[in-house]
Each structure stands twice: as C-alpha cells, then as structure tokens.
C-alpha cells in the first residue's frame, strides 16, 4: 500500500502560513488529510485516496489530474456530485484538492486529454463506490436493507419515509476503508441531473477580478526572488562570473553551481536587473543545426531505428505506378509560447522540501526534485498551483528545479519567475515532423494504396522524466533521452483502404530539447493526411466531402462530417473552385476530419478563406466544427476547449516557427514568435454532439488536429496552391501560387 505518512502539524502549519498572507483561497493552502489522523492513503485502489467527507458533511475530492484552464475543476465536481446525489446548486461546495504529491493519488500526468476520460472516470467510480458504502453503513444504522434506502442532499433514508441519517454522521472525518469497486453500479445517464449541464466554472469570478492565485502570486514568509541566467548558447559551460558587475545593485546574492548561474534578492526588481546585468563568460555551445537545416536533417538522420506501424495488404505497386501521387509535408519546431513565463516557489529545508509548481505531472517530477535536492522522495512535496496556460510541458518543471536549486543554496524560500526570452528560448519545444505520403487511386477514384513515411524524433523508452535545465547545468545527472508525446498516430487515413503501410523513421535526436505539445504529432500528421486526401479527391474530380464519406465506415465519423459540412453551408463540387475573376482575391473552402488516435474523439473542421494573390495574405473568414467526444460532462467547458483548440491550431498554422541559429533560439519575443491576435479571429460555428450513452472522451486536443488541413484545403480550393509547410506565411503562399501556375 502506497501510504505517505503525513504530519498533521506540517499541514496545519502550511495552511496557517498561507492564510497569514491572505491566500486563504489558494489551492493547497487548506490542504490537509481528512480521513485518518496521521496517514492518508494514495493507493489508487482505495476510495479514501479519492474522497473524504468532513465532519460537517462537506465532500472533499483528491484529484491527481489538475485544471490547466480546461474546466476540470467543474467537470470533476460534477462527476462526483452526480454519483453522490449532490444537487447542481451545491456542486461548488465540494472541495477539490489537485496535483499534490502528499494528498492526491498519482493518476498520471494531466496530458493526452486524459483528465476527464481517465481521471474523472476514476473519481466517478470512487464516488459510486462511496455511495454504495454509505448506503451499507446507513442500512446497518437504520436497520433497513440498502435497496430500500436512498441518498439525497447528504441524507440517507428509506424511500418511503422514516428516519434519516447524514453522511457526515456515518463517515465524517473517518476513512471509508473500502476498495474501489470496478463493477459498482453507476447512475443511469438517463437520470443525470448534474452531469451534462454547463455549470459555471468555480474559478471564473476570481480569474476575472484578479483574485485568483497563480503560482506567480504565491508569497511565503522570508521568500526571496530568484532569477536564473541561462547559458549564452545551448550547452555552453560557465567559465567566469564577474560579481562586481552588479555591485551597484544592493542586496543581491549570486548562486553558482558549476554552470548553473542564478541570483536571489529580497526585491524582485533587484533580482531582475541583476540577472540582466550580471557579466559572465561562457564557453562555446555544443552546437545547433539552425532552423533552416531541420528538414534536411530529418531526412538524413542519424536514425535510431525504423518501425513499421501499420502494414495491411500490399503497397508495393505504388513504386512502379505512373499515376502514384506523392507529397511531402513539414511541420517546424514550435514553442508552447505560454503567455506568462514559467514560475515556481520552493521552500527547501535541511531534511524536507515543498515545491509549488504549475507542473502537469507533480508525481512524475517529485523524484526529479528529490534527486536534485539529495532528499528521499517522500521528503519532497510538490503541490500544483495554476500557471499561465500550458499545452504540454512548457518551462514549468524547469522553473521548479531552478527554484529548488536556489532555495537549497540560500536556505530560504525562493520564487523563480522566468523572463519571456527564457520561456520562448528554453521551454522544451514541439518537435519537427517530416512526412512523405504516396497513394494511388483505382478506376473508380478510390484510394487503392497508401504509404506514409514519417521522419520524427524518437521518444526514449521508459524515460523517467524530461532532463531539466538547471540540474543539468549544475552537474546533477539527468535521465538520458527525450520525450515527444505519441507523435506517430493518425498518419494512416481514416478511410477504408485495402493496401496501407505506415513507417516511422525514428530520429535519434532533436534540434532542440523536445517535449509533448498539444495533440502531439497528430496536428502535423492530420495536416499531411487530410491535405493529401484533398489532392486525391481533386485528381478523382470528386467533392472532398463525398470523397471522404464514400469510404468512411464509422457512423459517428460520418455524422460529424455531415454536420460540419451543413454548418459551413457546403456546396458539393470538386476542388479547386472554378477560377473567379474578382481581381487578386480568391475565395475557397476546405474541410478536414479526424478520428483522434483512431479510437477517441471525432472532429470535422471546415473553413472559408480569402487569399490575396498579390500579397499572399490569408484571411480566414469562418470556421465550422462538429465535435463528438461522447458524454460531455460540461458542454460549455467542452466548447471553450474546442474554441481554444481551433484558434491555437490556426495560430500555429499561420504564424508559428521557432527560429534558432547555431547557438541558441532567436525567436524570443512576440514579434519574432508571433501568435494569433484578436484581429485574426474568424467567425466560429461549433456543433457539439452530446452522447449520454457513450463514455466521455477527451476534448483538450482532438479539435486542433483537423485545423491545418482544413485551411490548406481551403487555400487549395481558392487558388490551386498546395501548402505543405507550416507556417503559411505570405512568402510561402506566394511561392505555392507560383508553383501552381
């Protein structure tokens, strides 16, 4: 049993300390174990790991998955409330503790759209098991069979009246000591009264009034402000520090651990200026390939290995078929580009440490922090607090390591906030992808054979965690290898094809330290696949929607495609559109479809664009999306995610590419790494399909994947130009127009 011994005094002192600084509303501030006086189980098979009931009847939920701005805070509560018969009006009274290694079970990182789909489903099962246990306790107390009892508003009584007993009385401040029942009877979706409703998010009012506590806002007694001076080039070693260069700034202490260089000060502005003005001499870096060399590198290798991912029928005829169509697609290195640079607070003591971090994976990084601090894992507590939105692993875990190293060095709590150039320069990046596609059509214009070859960075098997910047520079061993997310999925078309082969040429390294970025790999793969499908449809002279529907077997896929086409007002005809004579402006529409990972959410996206042939600028006028993620716990939270996916993917497609020279990243601000602005926002039409009889699936990623191809297909429809490399800059559009003639 994975039980973490908790000192109750430790919790209470943490709570008092934060309350003292007026952060009573901070997640983690009030955090303390409810059930049991001295131990709190984190065992995933125990109800107590997920749920407790306070003496006053308040339900406390311990969630290993966290709210990254995604609405989990309301969705998780709704799933628990439904099984415990808590009314919609009372849902906000459920306490939710998130991502705290001492209090919440390790449900895995909040990634891969798994929050509700896996984390929420576990909580739901725990709540249903708790309900069963409560009915059994009440049955004993009331001397009635459980089947005759009902739970309503925290009270259990007989259906036909008589005495009632409260859940507080039955279990308040005591453990359930019950295993999760995998066969527990869940509430019939037809009777849902809380799940499926767009209840408002509990954090919204605080967020729009400036009262929400982000990790950036946490303030501990005696806390110092820290900044890290990153090397002048990737891999550079620190040769010399000139501390006299900042002697005009009072109260600054320089911390150097091998090549890790930081400053701490009481005053944040002093730390900022010291970090900027501190003179240091660095060795040359280990050398980068430069952004212009990435596509050639991806084709050339070195490769770790090749892997055939799908092999069905026989695709060998493609090589000799004169009608085989070929295309190559390229996706560049991109940044998570979080709005606020990463931040963390660490309080490292002689024999234990507490780290507040916006990590998507506090449990995964707990051993990382313990290792760099030289403490046993159980002596390091990592507590999630909201950061600026992240869409995969941005700089937050690195910032946590920075804070930990500095706090250990100065024996005071230290808050580290990165500068923007740290975030855009040093966050682990979305990896590049190069994709070759080949396909041929049979006599009836259907896909007869399809081959995909991907040239993509390999994820290191069983990598404990992504190697962190600070400890690496400090000479503390980090795991060797890299993480990229599951980037090889969805390179095979979702349309029935007899002959199909998908090969991954796994690259041994990456141009810059990679990590998972939203819908890892699937955005680029779907861009390639769904753009190529339109090329095939054009050769067959068949309408792109019809071309897809002919060979789409899954009825839920068919439904999102049809609904999306209807939403955009699709007129069936082959692409490209007949040439119009309205000067330089060409208008077109495109559509794209994904069945995410081939087994999750269904999405179709269509858009209308106007292309200025002279300037190469693209104006997206309207986007339609039909979306089926099964049971929606909170439809407005899903809609918020879908809107965000669409606009962020549009931004990545139109504007984003991390640039770097032979030494370091050069796209270090919002002019050199531009993202979508309000003026670029098109009209959005979103159709969400609610399926109460289906399991809930993820909504945090899937709808970003069809966006690039829908845009490329609309540009193709408008002009005949084929966009095969992201971002779609005016120069690239003009080049594609020239190529199209």
């Amino acid at each position: 049993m994975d039980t973490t011994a908790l000192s109750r005094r430790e919790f209470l002192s943490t709570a008092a300390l934060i309350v003292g600084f007026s952060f009573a509303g901070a997640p983690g501030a009030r955090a303390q174990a409810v059930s049991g006086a001295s131990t709190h189980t984190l065992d995933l098979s125990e109800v107590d790991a997920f749920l407790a009931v306070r003496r006053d009847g308040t339900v406390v939920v311990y969630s290993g998955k966290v709210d990254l701005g995604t609405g989990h805070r309301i969705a998780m509560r709704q799933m628990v409330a439904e099984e415990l018969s808590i009314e919609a009006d009372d849902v906000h009274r459920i306490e939710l503790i998130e991502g705290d290694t001492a209090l919440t079970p390790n449900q895995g990182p909040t990634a891969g759209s798994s929050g509700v789909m896996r984390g929420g489903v576990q909580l739901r099962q725990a709540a249903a098991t708790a309900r069963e246990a409560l009915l059994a306790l009440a049955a004993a107390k009331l001397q009635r069979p459980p089947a005759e009892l009902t739970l309503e508003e925290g009270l259990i009584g007989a259906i036909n009246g008589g005495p009632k007993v409260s859940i507080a009385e039955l279990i308040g401040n005591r453990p359930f000591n019950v295993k999760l029942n995998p066969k527990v009877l869940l509430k019939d979706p037809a009777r849902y009264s809380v799940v499926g409703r767009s209840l408002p998010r509990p954090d919204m009012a605080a967020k729009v009034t400036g009262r929400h506590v982000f990790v950036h806002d946490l303030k501990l007694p005696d806390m110092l402000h820290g900044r890290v001076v990153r090397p002048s080039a990737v891999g550079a070693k620190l040769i010399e520090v000139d501390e006299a260069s900042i002697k005009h700034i009072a109260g600054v202490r320089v911390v150097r651990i091998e090549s890790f260089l930081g400053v701490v000060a009481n005053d944040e502005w002093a730390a900022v200026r010291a970090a900027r003005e501190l003179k240091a001499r660095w060795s040359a870096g280990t050398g980068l390939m430069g952004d212009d060399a990435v596509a050639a590198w991806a084709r050339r290798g070195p490769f770790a290995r090749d892997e055939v991912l799908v092999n069905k029928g026989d695709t060998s005829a493609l090589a000799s078929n004169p009608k085989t169509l070929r295309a190559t697609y390229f996706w560049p290195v991109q940044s998570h580009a979080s709005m606020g640079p990463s931040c963390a607070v660490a309080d490292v003591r002689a024999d234990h440490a507490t780290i507040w971090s916006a990590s998507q994976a506090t449990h995964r990084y707990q051993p990382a922090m313990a290792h760099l601090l030289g403490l046993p894992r159980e002596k390091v507590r990592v507590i999630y607090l909201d950061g600026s939105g992240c869409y995969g692993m941005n700089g937050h875990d690195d910032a946590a390591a920075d804070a930990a190293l500095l706090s250990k060095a100065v024996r005071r709590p230290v808050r580290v906030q990165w500068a923007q150039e740290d975030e855009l320069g040093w966050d682990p990046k979305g990896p590049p992808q190069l994709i070759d596609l080949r396909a041929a059509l049979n006599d009836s214009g259907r896909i007869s054979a399809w081959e995909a070859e991907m040239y993509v960075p390999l994820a290191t098997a069983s990598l404990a965690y992504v190697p962190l910047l600070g400890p690496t520079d400090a000479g503390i061993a980090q795991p060797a290898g890299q993480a990229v997310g599951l980037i090889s999925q969805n390179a095979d078309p979702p349309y029935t094809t007899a002959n199909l082969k998908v090969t991954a040429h796994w690259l041994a390294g990456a141009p810059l330290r990679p990590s998972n970025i939203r819908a890892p790999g699937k955005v680029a793969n779907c861009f390639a696949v769904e753009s190529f499908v339109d090329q095939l449809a054009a050769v067959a002279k068949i309408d792109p929607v019809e071309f897809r529907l002919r060979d789409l077997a899954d009825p839920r896929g068919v439904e999102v495609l049809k609904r999306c086409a209807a939403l955009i007002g699709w007129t069936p005809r082959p692409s490209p559109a007949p040439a119009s004579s309205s000067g330089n402006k060409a208008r077109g529409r495109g559509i794209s479809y994904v069945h995410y990972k081939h087994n999750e959410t269904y999405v179709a996206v269509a858009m209308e664009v106007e292309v200025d042939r002279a300037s190469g600028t693209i104006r997206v006028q309207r986007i339609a999306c039909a979306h089926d993620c099964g049971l929606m716990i909170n439809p407005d939270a899903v809609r918020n995610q879908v809107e965000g996916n669409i606009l962020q993917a549009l931004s990545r497609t139109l504007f984003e590419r991390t640039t770097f020279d032979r030494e370091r990243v050069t796209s270090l601000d919002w002019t050199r790494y531009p993202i979508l602005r309000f003026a670029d926002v098109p009209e959005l039409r979103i159709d969400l399909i609610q399926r109460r009889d289906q399991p809930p699936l993820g909504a945090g990623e899937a709808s970003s994947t069809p966006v690039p191809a829908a845009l490329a297909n609309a540009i193709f429809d408008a002009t005949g130009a084929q966009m095969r490399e992201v971002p779609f800059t005016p120069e690239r559009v003009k080049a594609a127009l020239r190529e199209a003639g």
Partner: protein
Amino acid sequence: MSTFDLLVNGTRHRVASWDPQQPLLYVLRNDLGLHGAKFGCGVGQCGSCTVLIDDKSTRACHVTVAAAAGKRITTIEGLGSPEKPHPVQAAFIAEQAAQCGYCTTGIVMSTVALLRATPRPTPEQIKTALDANLCRCGSHDRVLRAVARAAGDGRA
C-alpha cells in the same frame, strides 16, 4: 531610496524604491499586494499587466514607478470583486470568458478603457482595441462575446 506617492484604486500609498526606473508592475504586485496585473513579456507586447492610468489602458511593465507617481491608477482589483463584480467583469463571468485566465485581467482592463472612451463599439473597434492583448489559450471568441455583452449593458 526615493519615495513615490501612488494613487491606486482611490487610495494614496507612499512607496519606496531604490530605482526610479522600477516598473510600476513590481510595485503593484510586491509592495501593494495587488497581483491581478500579471508579468507577461516585460516589454509591453502582450498586455497581461494592463492597468488604467488616468483612464488610459497602460502596460504596468513598461511604465516606471516615477512616471506613474501622482497619476490616477486603476488595477483590476479596483473594479470589482468576485462577490460584487464590475459590469465588464460580470459580462466576462456570464460568458465564462477565460481559460487559464493569465491574460484575462489585462483584457478586462483594456475593455474598460475601450468602453469608457467608446460606449457602443463596433465589432471591428472591439478587435482593434484588444489587438495588443494576447491570449494563448484561444479564449478570443468568448472574450469578444463578453465585450459585446458589456457594451450592450452600457455600464462600463
């Protein structure tokens, strides 16, 4: 150490700073405990730190404490509270117009500045007024709905 008189949300504060060039943002966040304005880029490109100075939308990362002294400063905390939100904040709550929320307070401040100057903005005027506020989560569409709602209420 120099001292500066700041008029923030209607209250006068005397603050000390060793550097007159210190951006107002750090004084608001650390000396006055007003953490609604966020550090984003530090160079006036993203709008996360937006406050009103004499009713004008201003980047607190890009105005020095010396330059802000003596002027009327309004931060997000000066508009309303979760219990009693300002009409613009109420409109953002009604539209659930945020995801992570890091950029949101700056967008709310820019919206208040817009509606004070232009109570009935066109959709294009709204987009123009917010164009210097960046959002990474993609909350733009519901932000535009919230601004339109607030403008419809006409009480900014």
